[in-house]
């Protein structure tokens, strides 16, 4: 077995240890004898998303998001929408998560159009929502507890038909108001959690990997690993929150 992971925009969306998520998926597959091939898709490159089994998009800096919008609107937005509808697994974080939504409106009312693959939008606020946080995944995303670090000033609102990825137990989540965190649509997992997300939340990492493997191979299983170190790190932070 093998997973082909597409890392979109690693050149500009790589802010908060996102590389750790890629490393983590690669190692956890390798430890089980499953192959993993990561292809970087920087700005300006051409590729068919359907050639991959999982797409990862991380978070970025404000300045660089401009560069990326131009690139998106040259056709990648259409392709991403099609891939999402087709059930392609996506893991998107912070800026990458916001980008899958309809638009971002800055605090002073400037609006920039995003991909529109998910029924959500984000509005900039004056406060910055920063800190370690904790949320409980919805059952359809495995139901485990996730600890991470969030750092965003955008408040994300989900459309009425869109399910959150989980429920906030401590911290802000999507907007600091409705206790929702992230979004789950088809096989898209969107979240504000970096830290990075996956190494300290091995159950969630495996859930995403399994989603991708099952889609590709029809049926798949993941052998258990010795996660003592990962669980200790998870518990140390969970206990603090």
């Amino acid at each position, binding site marked *: 077995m093998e997973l082909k992971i597409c890392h979109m925009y690693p050149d500009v969306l790589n802010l908060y*240890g996102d590389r750790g998520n890629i490393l*983590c998926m690669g*190692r956890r597959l390798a430890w089980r004898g499953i192959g993993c091939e990561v292809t970087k898709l920087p700005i300006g490159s051409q590729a068919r998303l359907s050639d991959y089994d999982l797409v990862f998009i991380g978070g970025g800096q404000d*300045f660089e998001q401009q560069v990326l919008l131009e690139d998106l609107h040259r056709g990648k937005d259409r392709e991403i929408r099609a891939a999402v509808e087709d059930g392609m697994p996506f893991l998107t974080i912070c800026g990458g998560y916001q980008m899958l939504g309809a638009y971002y409106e800055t605090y002073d009312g400037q609006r920039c159009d995003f991909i529109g693959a998910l029924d959500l939008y984000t509005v900039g606020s004056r406060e910055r929502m920063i800190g370690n946080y904790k949320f409980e995944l919805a059952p359809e995303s495995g139901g485990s507890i996730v600890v991470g*670090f969030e750092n965003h000033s955008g408040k994300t609102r989900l459309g009425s038909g869109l399910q959150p990825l989980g429920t906030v137990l401590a911290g802000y989540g999507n907007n600091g108001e409705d206790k929702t965190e992230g979004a789950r649509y088809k096989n898209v997992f969107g979240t504000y959690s970096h830290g990075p997300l996956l190494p300290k939340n091995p159950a969630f990492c495996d859930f995403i990997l399994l989603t991708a493997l099952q889609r590709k191979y029809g049926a798949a299983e993941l052998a258990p690993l010795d996660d003592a*170190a990962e669980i200790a*790190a998870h518990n*140390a932070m969970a206990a603090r929150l």
Partner: protein
Amino acid sequence: MNLRAFLAILLCKALRLVSRLLRRGGTAMPGSFALKICPDLLRRLASQVKTIAVTGTNGKTTSARMIEEAFSGEGLSYLANRSGANLASGITTELVMNATLGGRMKKDYAIIECDEAAARSVFSQLRPRVVVVTNLFRDQLDRYGEVTHTLENIRTAIQGAPDALLCLNADCSLTASLAGDLPNEVIWFGVEKGAVPSREKPEISDATHCIRCKAEYEYDYISYGHLGGFRCPRCGYARHAADIAVTEVVEQRMDGSSIVLSIRGEKQLVEIGLPAMYNIYNAAGAVAGVTAMGLPASAAIAALGRFRCGFGRMETFALGKKGARMMLVKNPAGCNQVIEFLQNVKEPSVLAACLNDRAADGKDISWIWDADYEKLGSIASRLARVIVSGDRAEDLRVRLKYAGIPDERIELQRDYAALVDDLAAEERPIFLMPTYTAMLELRQAVIHRVGGSEFWEG
């Protein structure tokens, strides 16, 4: 001399005396009270000294201490703020302690190391004659926002000092961009093409796209991180030739480097008593700063030769049979440099890495995943022991596991006293790799055991 200033100075001196008697290190509190009584106190005092300020993300403290060593060698009367006292309040305390009760400065020069965020409010009052900007890397994101915000802070700071001579890192595309929109005269320092073998473009770069037009940079060479011969193919923004240029790195040793430095065209062999590539940059920046202040280049060069590691920056201690070296890390770029230094250690050694997530460290520790710990994984067989410690020891353990160090080989010891006792029995060289607040505590524990100076005495 007005009454407010007099009262402020009196109170500040008294509070500092009391805090010293109580052995509370805090230098910020007295200055902060003094500024409440007399808001223009800092400006009043600073106007009587010739100031050189050092800011940037990495290497501020080391560069400032190198500059200080040159001033000291020339027998000049100067004051300098110590690590940790680099906010407006701490700088005010430092100036007050070097002033008479009547508000007259007793020193001629001031060497001020200043936080990027603090520089914004402090420079317009300090009115430095020279400003050295070391570099700009991603650092403590949750505290300062993103790296372009840090750049904006420095730009605003320098706008408060329009007469200052700027010493800028020519190889850092972020730092160098300051020259474009500020009226200040600029002295450039940097490392030339061919001085060291060019690196691969790092997987994670802090500046990939042109700060002016957003096209992707091309590089003639990379010295480390995003530093090197950058060039924008679209708008032409490119590295400026350096006035203070490292043209050759002759030798890099455990205890220092030998380089050829071209100072405005004149080449000289220079010894730096501090190892690693990033300190070669610090040295070039210090030479730029010292000469910009009107001191002879010979003063700066002699200082670099005399310079010794201190205060957690490659500082050595008589711990264990072969000694211990403390190497502060605070962000991926600096961490990668330390890891590279470790790669060059050929004998089996012991590594203790400590990760904290307090305000001064940055509360977001995700940066450890952007640093190349995989390179430690590749020398795992030479690391006889790997110990993790600090508030976030468990996170570091996971990072090292994924970097290729078998988990069963990683020891976790959170108690610094116990850690130091354990290391004291070591027969192999010891390398300590703490973040800032971990360094302060670990250093105390080491000094408690084997002695050493409480402050950096050079």
